[in-house]
């Protein structure tokens, strides 16, 4: 399990912990012609599922590509500022008479914990799984939302 922290958001959190390893990996990738780096996105090695996290003034959004999972076997939970996505991807057995030419799709259990950058209202968190994509919408708690301050003149 890999934990990534985004403690002092928005971007400072990316510089600590595993970010150093990611950076070394990215540099190596560039040296050997890899596809990471330079495009505003970075894939940590050996982590599943990968996450894209974004926010606006109301919500934090977590998106993830997890194709071929049955809904019962996908679990999303929020505890405080910690979001956990876990589950199992099973690939059903084919008839024993088949001959495989390629087997690139992976099966197995996964678990990923992610520390949210802000307090969220855990009672109103919504998760949707469609077309093999998980989308979690986490409403920011009232105190975490930006406040517009009226200026008196």
């Amino acid at each position, binding site marked *: 399990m890999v934990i990534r922290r985004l403690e002092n958001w*928005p971007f400072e959190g990316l510089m600590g912990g595993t970010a150093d390893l990611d950076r070394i990996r990215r540099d190596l990738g560039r040296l050997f012609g890899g596809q990471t780096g330079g495009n505003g996105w970075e894939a940590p090695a050996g982590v599943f599922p990968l996450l*894209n996290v974004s926010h606006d003034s109301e919500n934090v959004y977590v998106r993830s590509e997890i194709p*071929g999972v049955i809904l019962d076997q996908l679990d999303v939970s929020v505890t405080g500022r910690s979001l956990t996505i876990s589950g199992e991807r099973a690939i059903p057995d084919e008839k024993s008479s088949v001959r495989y030419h390629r087997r690139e799709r992976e099966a197995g259990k996964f678990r990923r914990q992610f520390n949210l950058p802000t307090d969220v209202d855990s009672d109103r968190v919504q998760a949707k799984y469609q077309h093999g994509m998980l989308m979690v919408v986490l409403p920011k708690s009232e105190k975490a939302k930006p406040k517009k301050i009226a200026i008196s003149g």
Partner: protein
Amino acid sequence: MATPTQDIQPREKREVKSEREQTTPGRVYAPSVDIFEDDQALTIVADMPGVPSENVVIDLRDDVLSLSGVPSVSVPEQEEYLLREYDTGKYFRQFTLSEVIDQANINANLSNGVLRVTLPKVGPAKPRRIEITEG
């Protein structure tokens, strides 16, 4: 078959570096596939997360099978990224088939981002003997 207790082995999305240039901007990824066959059919299973069925194109021309899919998801502009570990793009992959396929009975199904294409085989292609008439 993977044992159910095993942890998943993550695979990085593989970008396709095409010989030809795309006319539309954006990345193209090769979906991970399982390919297997028995006496009746050849089956291809491909992971295409984010792609709705109306955006899948399966094309069989001569003996080349092309699978492509365009994800429907887009991130609204007012959202600001905090972490970006993957990029989305079109899926594309081509295969050369060695069997003769019964084109009228190709079956395709898309479920939770997994495309399954079943290509029934036509009996082994019989070499056609051409009779030569004299005179």
